[in-house]
């Protein structure tokens, strides 16, 4: 492909007791691309992104970020490495305002009395929040508004903007369009494209293949813990992806024979 690989997963295996959640999964993420990670419930998508974002640790396999091997012991380490994750329901604190949410966990401080006391730079954070949102074309009337009073779309925009602002390398979006009104989905998908234009690589998990096709450059399909296919968006269509997800034709799924055929096809 000639594109620069930013993240490389090699032979990732994760077991929860007897359950094999991920079985020898290898996957590359290229710079400046949107990769849609799709699969049925229990296919291992969530486990995979949690491994990438440091929330859980694989039993076997390696992760390379820009060619260098990384071992994330916690989400904080992944964040430091420039990988931001927007989880479905863990993105924002309802009772905090927009600016405080954007800067939560990485607040800007000013030192007084020779560094003995550090105070928050509220004004600065509010100004920066405006800039961050403006860059991505998000309009929030009032940056001091508690996010619980914003619409689902606005909240999701803020969560994505937060990831984009601080995820220097990669942002991972877990079902970003799941709880949104139809009208708002378009905004979020636009936002994903904008983030890509900003030079960020994006992994997006979604059950909605139409949405995935609107933004993704490439698809990786998981089924019961195995990667069963990778397709460029331009070379495939919803039918083929659905077949990969379900294993064979929609009707005849399940048994080994038919699965293999599709995988190798």
């Amino acid at each position, binding site marked *: 492909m000639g594109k620069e690989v930013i993240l490389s997963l090699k032979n990732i295996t994760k077991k929860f007791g007897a359950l094999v959640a991920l079985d020898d999964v290898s996957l590359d993420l290229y710079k400046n691309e949107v990769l849609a990670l799709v699969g049925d419930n229990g296919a291992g998508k969530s486990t995979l992104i949690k491994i990438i974002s440091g929330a859980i640790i694989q039993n076997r396999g390696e992760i390379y970020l820009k060619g260098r091997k990384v071992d994330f012991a*916690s*989400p*904080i380490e992944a*964040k430091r490495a420039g990988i931001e*994750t927007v*989880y479905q329901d*863990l*993105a*924002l*604190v*309802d*009772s*905090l305002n927009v600016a*405080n949410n954007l*800067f*939560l*966990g990485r*607040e800007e*401080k000013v030192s007084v009395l020779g560094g003995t006391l*550090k*105070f*928050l730079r*509220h004004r600065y954070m509010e100004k920066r929040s405006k800039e961050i949102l403006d860059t991505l074309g998000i*309009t929030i*009337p*009032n940056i*001091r*508004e*508690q996010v*619980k*009073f*914003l*619409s*689902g*779309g*606005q909240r999701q925009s803020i969560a994505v903007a937060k990831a984009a602002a601080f995820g220097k390398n990669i942002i991972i979006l877990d079902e970003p369009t799941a709880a949104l*009104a139809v*009208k*708002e989905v378009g905004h979020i998908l636009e936002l994903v494209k904008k983030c890509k234009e900003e030079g960020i690589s994006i992994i997006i998990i979604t059950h909605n293949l139409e949405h995935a096709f609107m933004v993704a450059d490439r698809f990786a399909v998981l089924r019961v813990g195995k990667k069963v296919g990778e397709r460029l968006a331009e070379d495939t269509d919803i039918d083929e992806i659905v077949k990969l997800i379900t294993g064979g034709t929609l009707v005849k799924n399940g048994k080994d024979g038919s699965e293999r055929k599709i995988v190798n096809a």
Partner: protein
Amino acid sequence: MNDRTTKNIGNLNNKSIASRIGAIREIIIFGLTVGLFIIFYFTTRGIMFAPATLRIIFVAVAELGLVAIGITMLIIAGEFDLSVGSISAMGALLAARFYQMGVNPFLALGISLIAGIALGGFNGFITVRFKLPSFIITLATMIGYRGLIYVITEGVPIGFRVIDTHPGFHRLLTGMLTVIPIPLIWLVVGTVILILLLNFRRFGNHVYAVGGHKETARAMGININKTKMICFMILGMLSSFAGVMRVTRIRSFHSLQGEGIALLAIAAAVIGGTLLQGGVGTILGAVLGTIVIVLIEYGLIMSGVGAYMYNLVLGAVIIIVVILNNVIEQRRT
């Protein structure tokens, strides 16, 4: 929810109202405070606001307020502490007991404060370490700490006539600075420090985040347990200090000291706009809530209505304020 959503987009009028609403809670409680002042001015024919009465009122405000601001911070962080009355009594007991043994009262105060931090810290440790509801844990320690007090005192009061030997100590805790009661100054100091901590420091941001949505805070890399522990410990210290202040003023420790403070302090927080589910509340609101509670108590007594009415009226006020707050919240959404 989504209908509301689309309606709100681009509706700029929402913005100005919404941004002011944060303050509306405080305006209500401030209005309530002023209203009570006016009502009681007339019903007591002005006696209520004679300098001597005001002094008593503000000392009472300070003693309850120091606990109320601390418990407000803890409630914002999403936890409870019912044991503050017992902690404040323990602080008072230790100060009195060590003083009785010949220890300098300033040193005794230091021991009390450390004990307050330790007792609050124990509440916090059990709560976060075993992931248990602080309501239950501190219900147990409220009983347990009080039990420890009885074990130590066997119910016998302990004199604390520090005014005779160390008038400076007495003055520092309960004296007057010209016309201002010094306890009130302590409350102002505590309030300013907690406001700085909560609203102008990173720690405060984390307190609001932890109480607002624990798991999100965790995902953002915030140390939830540490944040909560610090809140428990600060509250323990403030409670202990309030207890020492009270025993200095009363000049004698009784094993019942501080009973019922926890619920009054929580009431002050709630009247001041703090939400019990965490994430929302202000220190200033807690101070105003405290003033309301104390005004009701003294106002009713001095109006000649009688002390028996106090709890009834206070209960009604809490319900009314909570309903008002709720209505405001609903209006917004």
